[in-house]
């Protein structure tokens, strides 16, 4: 049975991450947000201290923990003034390495020790395309075998952290959609060394006002050559391998949302206790107190699902429903908590100096990404409840 009980290791991990993150004050994050700059110094310190190796096996130089612990690291990162940008600048490596560890050949696994040591970044995952969106089997980026290598052409959109990564997990078709029997067949995963991509990948940033520190990009891929030994897993079976990455991703993002949600509530509660209007603390008003209590309750409930999903994932058991539900519940709870925090702080909640407006902006992202709430409901309706497929 899964448990939410924290081990000594978990508590030490939490404290160590908190202390590391505390070196980066709110001013640092405000400045990065205003300048739309990646938190390079912060990420470098995380890398230098070995945190990117949290769920890399010990034989490859990592700490050998699992998704539960990776999610704890991310939860603590987001429970700081860095919010979801602090965790979002770092999180892709944690889910990307899961698939590299499980399906990578020895050639691909050679990268793992360097990722664990913080010498290489594996922060990019390229799935979505303009014509496919959440319908991943519809991707059209095509990899064609030529001797001992693949030549890849296509376009990807909304690919984060490409400008700050050395490696990228690229999802491409090795058999066109029109030629496969099952629509989920014919997809293959490639490990792309971005340092060697040269002009084969053109990166165009897609600016947004939600998460301004972390770049999101369009990629134009033209005649990108990837060695055959950089295929991760089985050729044509990449979609099924990918499901494991996205489950890890959902669990980690759920943890990030829970971390920020709790942090924001603590900020709002502190304010509500001290802000006096009409001769009493505003927290004495149920219109302020009840929504915060409700936000807290929603986060606690989401956290149970997050730990259940993490437990199943770490045990090698199916967890698609739980991972999706955890992401759904945590994203809703976090957004609600941030929204109520804005309401509690009033005008100050929208002032840059309190950071609450940034948290509120950033929390909106996970209602939409990496998969929309609507697609999760579709998945549950069809795959879990057995209702007719609606799409």
């Amino acid at each position: 049975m899964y448990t939410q009980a924290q081990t000594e290791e978990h508590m030490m991990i939490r404290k160590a991450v908190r202390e590391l993150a505390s070196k980066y004050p709110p001013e640092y994050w405000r400045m990065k947000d205003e300048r739309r700059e990646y938190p390079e110094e912060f990420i470098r310190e995380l890398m230098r201290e070995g945190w990117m190796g949290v769920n890399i096996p010990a034989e490859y130089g990592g700490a050998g923990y699992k998704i539960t612990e990776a999610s704890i690291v991310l939860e603590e990162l987001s429970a700081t003034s860095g919010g979801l940008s602090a965790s979002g600048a770092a999180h892709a490596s944690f889910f990307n390495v899961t698939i590299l560890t499980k399906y990578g050949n020895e050639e691909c696994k050679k990268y793992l020790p360097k990722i664990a040591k913080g010498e290489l970044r594996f922060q990019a995952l390229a799935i979505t395309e303009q014509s496919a969106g959440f319908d991943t089997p519809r991707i059209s980026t095509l990899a064609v075998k030529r001797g001992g290598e693949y030549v890849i052409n296509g376009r990807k959109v909304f690919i984060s952290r490409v400008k700050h990564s050395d490696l990228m997990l690229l999802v491409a078709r090795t058999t066109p959609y029109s030629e496969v029997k099952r629509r989920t067949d014919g997809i293959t995963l490639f490990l792309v060394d971005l340092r060697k991509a040269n002009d084969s990948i053109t990166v165009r940033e897609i600016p947004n006002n939600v998460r301004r520190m972390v770049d999101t990009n369009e990629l134009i891929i033209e005649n990108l050559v990837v060695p055959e030994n950089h295929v991760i897993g089985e050729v044509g079976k990449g979609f099924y391998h990918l499901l494991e990455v996205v489950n890890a991703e959902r669990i980690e993002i759920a943890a990030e949302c829970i971390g920020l949600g709790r942090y924001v509530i603590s900020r709002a509660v502190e304010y509500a206790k001290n802000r006096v209007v009409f001769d009493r603390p505003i927290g004495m008003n149920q219109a302020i107190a009840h929504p915060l209590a409700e936000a807290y309750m929603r986060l606690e409930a989401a956290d149970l699902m997050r730990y259940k999903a993490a437990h199943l994932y770490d045990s090698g058991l199916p967890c698609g429903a739980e991972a999706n539900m955890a992401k759904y519940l945590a994203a809703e709870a976090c957004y609600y908590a941030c929204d109520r925090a804005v309401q509690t702080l009033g005008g100050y909640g929208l002032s840059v100096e309190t950071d609450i407006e940034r948290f509120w902006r950033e929390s909106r992202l996970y209602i939409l990404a990496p998969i929309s709430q609507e697609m999760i409901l579709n998945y549950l309706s069809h795959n879990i409840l057995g209702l007719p497929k609606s799409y």
Partner: protein
Amino acid sequence: MPDIVVCVKQTVDVYQLKPHPETLEPVFSQAQSKISDFDLNALEEALRIREKGGGRVSVVSAGPSINQLLIRETLAMGADEAHIISHPLLSTYDGRVTATVLSKLVEKAGRWDLILCGEASLDNSDYQTGPRLAEIFGVPHLAYVTKLEISDGRLKAWKSMEDGLHVASCSMPAVVTVGLEINTPRLPSLLMIRAATKKPIHEYRLSDLGLTEEELNPSVTLRELKALKVERRRVKLEGKPEELAEKLADILVREALAR
């Protein structure tokens, strides 16, 4: 390769303590426990010495209820092992009792060349543990050390004193007490946290240390603990800025003389 024992004390985090609004007694339930700040500096110094010259770093800790997690954190910083005792009578304010119990734990840690302690604890600030341990073991004691070197089996210590810098030297074994200035304690890295779970924490009963409860009876007891009540005067000065400055200066001089 000096073997080093570091004394660490688990204290309440006094920075989180707030006085009860009426009784002025500190509300301990609102504050978490932590390792006393100076003791982390002592541990950091021990780890740096080991990194340069090898040896073993043991941690010893005695208190009413030692939280193993905090001890595990010292192992995650890099200590090799820990020796601890929890006993209700160790909630004492008596430096003699503390040093007596710690000396027994030091003996359990085995051979040692150097004992490192924080100058004082975060909560009591009695400055007694280091000197008393030196007395018990009959070894030299260097206090207020801000820089420490070991060469040819001797310690060389830089001590920042009010009248200037003292540089002192002594043979080992010895006891050295340090403050915040000597270093910045490291944060445990992920791999060290992982490694710490396999390091031993030896927990003892009083009888294991050859001690009786009578020996823990304090000769000093705490009678009362209260925050100082400070009230603002709420004096409002009015007038032109230059006149105000003069009035303010007068008040400050008068207050200073009154003290």
